[in-house]
Structures are given as C-alpha cells and as structure tokens.
C-alpha cells in the first residue's frame, strides 16, 4: 500500500529525511517511533503530499505521490490530481484541526459533499453512523469548542473515515490529550485496526504499538534505525539508539 524507496526530504539546507526505505502492506498497522526531529512526522506528511519529497520514490497503492511517471520522466501532478489522491488517504492531526465554525456533523459531511459530491442527506446519515461508531452519536450538533479534546479527536477520526480512505495516517493523535482522554481515542484506533484499515501511526504510546502494530519502525535523525515486529523492536532492540530511546520512555 505504501512503498518508500530512498526517500529524502530537505527544507532548504536542512535535510530531514536521509533515505527512508519502508513498506506498509494493505491492512497492516505500522507505528513510527522516535525522538522529536527524527523526521517521522515529516515522512508521514510526505505520504499524502502535504510535504513534497526531495528525492527517492514514494508511492501509495501503486501510484507515485505527487508525480506521474511517463516515458521515464516525472511530471508534477496538477492541484486537482493531488487533491483527488489525498481524498483517498485520511489524516488525523495532533491538534485535531476540526473546523470550529461547523458542528461535528457538518465537519464530517463537509468533505464527502464538497469533494465527492455525495447527496447531503446520505452524507448526513453516514456521518451519524460514523459518529456513533466513535461513540459520539449524541454530539452531532455540537460545536468543537464544546467538546473535550478526546471527543474532538474522535470527531476528527470520523471526519477522516467519512471519505472512505484506503489508508489512514495518524500524526501523534494522542499527544495533545489529557492522559484520561487518551484511552478513548486509542480504543477507536484499535477497532479501526481490527477492522482491517491500513494505518501508519506516529505515536509515543508504546502499549498501543505493542498491542496493535504489525510493524514498528524506530527512526532517528532522518533514518530508519530499526524496523520489525512489535516484539522484536520493543522487547529485543538490536541497536544502541533504539535501546537508549526505549529506556527513556515510560
């Protein structure tokens, strides 16, 4: 589903990704761990082209991200094509980024109606289903400001799911939450994983990674230090840096 080959990313003179080789299969859950500045969020954002790759090949479901390949040459995708590709990839942000001027229901129906052209009533019905799935069926008509952080993040997940994505990206989804609210969001993510969603999750929640991840990747300073199953990386880390990092995280 996601294939990264020698992915490099620089911001001006600062090289953040120094050659990432990763693979995520359909239905697989991959957790990206690592210290801040390791490039894990940047890599995540490259997957749906919120950041443009500087070098290397990154493809989602067989299609190159941000480019079209024709006759051996790379052609940059037009805005419309990029938008269409993004519509199939859902993203959940650390700071939720719900639209504050819309109710929870409208947040969830906005993209299906505007981007996919779905009928409004059908979209609303589906939105209510999704909100119910994340445990917020009674909050459909409330505004984000009236919701707790955990509730907002769950609405954000419902909003991403409304587009029926084939891949879900999570950028530290629980880092901005009070500890008591982390559980409810992780529960939704676990159920998504159980239902077979392909997920790439940047997180610090080790127990989540251990329980749910099919693959755990440890990144540091722009490179993949170690990758493997959850038990391999978390319980039997091979590299010094991995061990150092894990020992400092509770």
């Amino acid at each position: 589903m996601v294939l990264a080959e020698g992915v490099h990313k620089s911001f001006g003179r600062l090289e953040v990704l120094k050659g990432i080789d990763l693979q995520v299969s359909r239905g697989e859950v991959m957790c990206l761990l690592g210290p801040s500045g390791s490039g894990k969020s940047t890599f995540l954002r490259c997957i749906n082209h919120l950041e443009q790759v500087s070098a290397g090949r990154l493809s989602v479901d067989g299609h190159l991200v941000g480019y079209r390949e024709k006759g051996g040459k790379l052609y940059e995708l037009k805005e419309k094509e990029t938008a269409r590709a993004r519509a199939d990839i859902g993203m959940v942000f650390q700071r939720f980024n719900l639209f504050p001027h819309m109710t929870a229901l409208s947040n969830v129906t906005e993209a299906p109606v505007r981007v996919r052209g779905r009928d409004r009533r059908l979209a609303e019905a589906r939105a209510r289903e999704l909100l119910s799935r994340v445990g917020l069926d009674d909050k459909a008509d409330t505004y984000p400001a009236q919701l707790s952080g955990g509730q907002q993040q769950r609405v954000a997940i419902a909003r991403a799911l409304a587009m029926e994505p084939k891949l879900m990206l999570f950028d530290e989804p629980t880092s901005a939450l009070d500890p008591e609210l982390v559980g409810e969001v992780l529960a939704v993510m676990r159920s998504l994983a159980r239902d077979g969603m392909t997920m790439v999750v940047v997180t610090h929640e080790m127990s989540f990674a251990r329980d749910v991840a099919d693959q755990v990747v440890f990144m540091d300073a722009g490179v993949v230090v170690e990758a493997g199953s959850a038990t391999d990386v978390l319980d039997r880390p091979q590299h010094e840096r991995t061990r150092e990092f894990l020992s400092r995280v509770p």
Partner: protein
Amino acid sequence: MTQPGPARLVSVPVRHYGRWLSALLVLAAIAWLVRAFSQADIDYATTGEFFTAENVIRGAGRTLLISVLAQAMGIGLGVLFAVMRLSRNPVTSTVAWFYIWLFRGTPVLVQLLLWYNLALIFPTIGGRPTSDLMTPFVAALLGLGINEGAYMAEIVRSGIGSVDDGQTEAAQALGMTRAQTLRRIVLPQAMRVIIPPTGNEFINMLKTSSLAYTIQYGELLLSAVSIYTRNLQVIELLFTVSLWYLVLTSVFSVGQYFLERRFNRGSRDARQTATGRLVSNLRRRPRL
C-alpha cells in the same frame, strides 16, 4: 448560626493629591474655553437652525449613501485583491501588489480629482462622452471605493493569515482544493478578524467622504459650503455639519462597540473593547 467572616481590612487609602490638582486644571481650562467660545462672535442660533435645513439633511443622506456604497465596493475589491495577492500565480499576485501600492500610496483627494477629470485622458468611453458618464456621484464612488479596496485588501489578507495553518492542512488532507478550502474553511474563520476593523473603516469613510465636496458631489460638507458662500456664516455652518458628522459617527460607533464585543466573544477579555474600558472606568468611583 453562621460565623461572621474575617473582619474587613481597614486602612488609610493612598491620597492622590496630584489628581485633585490636575482635575482642577482641566476644569479651569474647560471653563476658559467655554467662556472664549460664548463670548466669540458666533451666532449659535444659526447653527441650530441649519441643523434641520432641507439641504443639510439631504447632504447627510448623501454622505451616508456614498459611504455605504463606497465601503461595499471596497469590501468587494478588498476580498478580490487579497485573494489575488495570496495567489501562487506570480502575475496575479504582482498585479494585486501594484494595485494596493498605488491606491494606498496616493492621497484619496488626488484620486478623486483624477477620476473626476478622467475626460482629459479618455474623452470618450464606449462611444459615450466621458464627461457625461463621470458625474460627481460616479467619480466619488470610484475614487472612494477603489481607494478603500486597497486598504480592505490588506485587512482581508491579514484576516486570512490569522487562520491557523492546521485548518488548511486538514482541508487539503480531506481532498479539498485551495479554492474550496478558502471559500468554505478559511474565509469564514477570517471574518472574525476582518469584521471589527471593517467597522472602523466605515466610520472613517463617513468622514473621508467629505473630500468629495471638491468634485461637486452634494454631500454634507458641500451643503454647508453652498450655504455659507451665500450667507457668509462660515463658522456657524461648519459647526452645523460638525454636529451632523458627530451624530453619524457616534451612532455607528455604538454599533461598532457591540460588533467588537461579539467578535471578541470567547477570548479571555471579552469585555475589553476600548469603549468598554472607558465606560467602566467612568462608572467606577474615582479614588481621589
């Protein structure tokens, strides 16, 4: 039986002798001014009389009309040029920059005069003589409206810039195009930051519209000038229209106060508009 609370703290408050002194000085200055103006050769009766004169009221009406229309035009142009300024197309962006630079960089009065004299550059427009098309009203509307557009463009641009980047990212991650993101997500949120200064701009427009008297547009100031060139009561008539301007700006300032209060809702200091603070300071008993 409830216990009595702790005894209230009794102390001798700080004495502000300086405040007594400055209050006295201010009152003395006011008294001197009042005396000076009452002894001056000003026929206040005339001022009051012309306040309700037909020409003056019509002038006030035209001031209001041109201000509303020019402000509306300014808002429309402002949104357009702000979006152009933020465009990734270098041509659109530069053209917008040029418009903003040109119309903010030259005096409104000069712009009004140029529009009024457009016939000297283009004798005909679309087959019709420019002097017929460019009436004082049209010239005033174009001059004030296009000038206001340049200022509104900057207000709108900063409003758009005030919306958190995360909003745009979330919208794009959902597959929305830049245009959709702007229209549905960014602009509605930008309004919170755009509307209060726009209210101020309108109040300024009410006063700036007086410049249109130079191109013969029959607004409030021109009505005063027409009258005093005949009856030579210059000061009296200027006082009349000053009162009218005060009435107009004050009425809308009240609206502006409520507008600011509404758009500061949710922020920590919701009551802290400039007028609000003034009112609460006056209400509090001065500790002299």
